[in-house]
């Protein structure tokens, strides 16, 4: 895409067409404060926090040429009112000022207004310590409020939007990020608004409440502590937590997560940004399905069978035993006598380490399949022609076709549904073939139905058709072993 040149606080920068002023400013390390704007959501322009001064080159109406001053520089016509940066796309020659007196007054004013309703219960708020409202107030807000009334908005506190998410309407600053996430990203338009004015409030419109597999993400993008999760509510202060990077193993997506630990205890699971995998989202299973880790039913120490019974042992003892057994087999029968089977749910990194270990022993006997020998090799085929090394989901859009066969991503690999939806939103073709309707059908550009147990037949027929047509050469080369 072509670039346009803009000047932000005196710094010239070329940014892609269509970039809004807030994002353009970020590219030159200029922070324009925002509440309702979120880079993954369509701009709403509601909170009025991102007001800045914007000017464009003055154009002579007769010649349609820019008017130049005595130094040959274009004359900039500043707009009379402040403009919301999040809703204003850049244009050639645009001048943006973010640190003027007017802008500072507007930012201070909006924050002062927001805080007239906000309860300021930061000491008991789960968001405290990672709260945009706190941070922006520190940086851009007034030192104290002139609002001398004991007149905060009061609501029952909190209400359950669903089983997993609580809403504190007093803390809510009405930015609508959660509503827009559910409408535009999750495609579960289950949140909405009720009432108006200062009583305007978020409600759940679904039965059961907040019926979405992605609801936890709204607590991440909520810029205040209005939305909190049943899982993490009142569990810990965020500054006590240490984030450990990890990969979620509950489905094939492999979302990048961070495990937020307090000492040795897992307090919450948060998404970790990875544009190639999960962007900044995770599903509720990945976020909330971690309680098994602390289950008392779990094995917490290795067990060694001695005299017919399993007895607790230390890791040193267990590893010692395994090493001895391997050594015994290797010396008596050679490396081909050992093999390894790894669970397919492990992350790529775990599997890599495992195979590396086996090959160090000298064995190539590796497998990860849990089916019977001779089961269909569709998995291998997908690895060759489907999402494989080098696939960039973000780059897929206009001009690409994605075929989903016999899968219900919302259930089986939830975050893939978001990614597939986004590809369709960007103008890509999304072909969904299944024996029954799934939620992905809503985003599909083409829906196909086949009979029970006909999925492999369908896939083979499709491949056959592809072979017979244009892609024969390419596909053949890629699917030949070796």
């Amino acid at each position: 895409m072509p670039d346009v040149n803009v000047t932000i606080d005196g710094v010239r920068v070329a940014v892609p067409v269509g970039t809004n002023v807030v994002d353009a400013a970020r590219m030159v390390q200029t922070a324009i404060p925002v509440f309702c704007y979120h880079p993954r959501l369509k701009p709403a322009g509601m909170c009025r926090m991102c007001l800045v001064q914007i000017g464009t080159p003055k154009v002579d109406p007769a010649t349609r040429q820019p008017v130049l001053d005595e130094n040959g520089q274009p004359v900039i016509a500043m707009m009379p009112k402040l403009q919301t940066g999040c809703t204003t796309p850049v244009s050639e020659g645009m001048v943006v000022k973010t640190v003027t007196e007017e802008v500072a007054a507007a930012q201070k004013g909006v924050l002062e207004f927001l805080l007239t309703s906000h309860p300021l219960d930061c000491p008991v708020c789960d968001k405290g310590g990672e709260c945009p409202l706190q941070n922006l107030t520190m940086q851009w807000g007034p030192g104290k409020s002139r609002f001398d009334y004991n007149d905060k908005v009061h609501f029952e506190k909190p209400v359950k939007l669903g089983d997993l998410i609580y809403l504190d309407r007093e803390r809510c600053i009405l930015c609508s990020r959660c509503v827009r996430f559910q409408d535009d990203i999750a495609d579960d338009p289950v949140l909405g608004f009720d009432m108006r004015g200062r009583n305007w409030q978020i409600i759940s419109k679904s039965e059961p409440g907040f019926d979405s597999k992605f609801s936890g993400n709204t607590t991440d993008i909520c810029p205040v502590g209005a939305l909190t999760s049943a899982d993490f509510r009142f569990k810990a202060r965020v500054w006590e937590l240490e984030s450990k990077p990890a990969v979620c193993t509950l489905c094939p997506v492999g979302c990048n997560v961070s495990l937020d630990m307090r000492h040795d205890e897992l307090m919450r699971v948060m998404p970790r940004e990875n544009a190639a995998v999960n962007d900044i989202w995770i599903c509720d299973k990945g976020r909330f399905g971690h309680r098994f880790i602390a289950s008392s039913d779990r094995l917490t120490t290795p067990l060694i069978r001695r005299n017919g019974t399993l007895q607790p042992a230390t890791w040193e003892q267990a590893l010692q035993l395994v090493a001895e057994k391997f050594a015994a087999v290797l010396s008596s029968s050679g490396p081909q006598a050992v093999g390894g089977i790894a669970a397919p749910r492990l992350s790529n990194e775990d599997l890599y380490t495992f195979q590396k270990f086996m090959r160090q022993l000298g064995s190539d006997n590796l497998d990860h399949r849990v089916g019977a020998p001779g089961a269909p090799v569709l998995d291998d085929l997908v690895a060759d022609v489907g999402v494989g090394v080098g696939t960039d989901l973000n780059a897929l859009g206009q001009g690409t076709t994605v075929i989903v066969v016999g899968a219900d991503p919302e259930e089986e690999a939830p975050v893939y549904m978001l990614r597939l939806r986004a590809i369709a939103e960007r103008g890509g073709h999304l072909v969904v073939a299944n024996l029954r309707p799934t939620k992905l059908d809503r985003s599909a550009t083409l829906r196909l139905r086949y009979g029970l147990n006909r999925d492999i037949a369908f896939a083979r027929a499709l491949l056959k058709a592809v072979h017979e047509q244009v892609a024969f050469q390419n596909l053949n080369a890629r699917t030949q072993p070796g």
Partner: protein
Amino acid sequence: MALTEHVVMRELDIPGIGDFDIYRQHGGWDAYCVAVKEQTPAAVVAVVKEAGLRGRGGAGFPTGVKWGFLPKGVYPRYLLCNCDESEPGTFNNHQIIDNNPHQLVEGVAISAYAVEANTAYIYMRGEFAAAARTLEAAIARAYAEGLLGKNILGSGYDLDIHVHRGAGAYICGEETALMESLEGKIGQPRLKPPFPAVAGLYGKPTIINNVETLTNVPMILQKGVAWYRQFGTEKSPGTKCFSLSGHVNRPGNYEIPFGLPLRELIYSPEYGGGMRDNRPVKIIIPGGASAPWLTGDKLDVTLDYEALAGAGTMLGSGAVIVLNDTVQAPHLAYKMDEFFKHESCGKCTPCREGTHWLVKTLHRMTEEGHAYAEDIPTLHSIYGQMAGNCFCLLGESAVMPIKSALRLFPQEFEQLVTQNGNGQHNGKHPIALESVR
């Protein structure tokens, strides 16, 4: 001189014009029949443009020019008639529908033809139940006469007109909030651009006009541009139905040509008939609650878009509220801003919180009898934090009463502070707003 011939309030010329047959006998629907059968839509647009008809809803934008903003070749298109009439002081749309409904329906039909829309909606304020029934009956009759429906008069043109009642929110008079409401969503303004002409109702090109604007259209076509332009001024042609209210002897709707001085509207026996009890005019709000105030010495300002803009205010919806010297400016500002606070949709921060804070402070100063010196700079800065920073014009409008009051009558605010300071105040505001008819 009162008009001898009216453009909109024709019940004054033709008794019983609310009856379909009488309307028809006096040339009603003729212009529409000619347009549909013999004129191109572009030709109709050209006539309206030439007549210089300007939108009567508040902005005064030239109607024909607005119609020209529709992107070429994009269909379906919609025509919306804005009958949310909820600007305080405005009450002419209701009277038009009560007395001359067929001319409005014909106006909607002609305009729909002009903008090539096959569906038109008349969005009515929720409280207008009786008026909605009147319009529905008028529309039903037009269908029965073959003036609406499929293949009208064999021309191949189809048109359906629907009446939709809102739930009674001021914000739904804002064009994009009206569309949200019409689509069944919560009535709140949309981000612009895209503007309605490009992506309006259901994301399709949409034209939205006020009741009074559309009621002008049949007469322009029927009687011609020259006839129409005999009324009013060069830049504000035609007539305007002013809704006159406040402390005048004869409040009501008066259709007058643009350009009449305020003095005549208030004092002429044909219109306002002077001030009640001959008290002096203190404050004139010439264009509904959203318009900046004028002081009582501005009676020579003429009632047209340009002159009122020159006087620092606006013609707005044509609701002229005239108040006498019993009214205290801070109290008036409080009452008006309480309206805006009540109607604030809550979408943007400055309007949602600013109106609340303004009203809270003004209530304390005027009703509770506790006014402090720092209240005055605080009020200035609250409206300053709102002005120009709101999402839509509701918040900007809420600035006008308090800004006007502080600018025109600063001494009254200072007086409130003094009263509080010397401990004489009885806790109740001494002069309550006299009942305003």
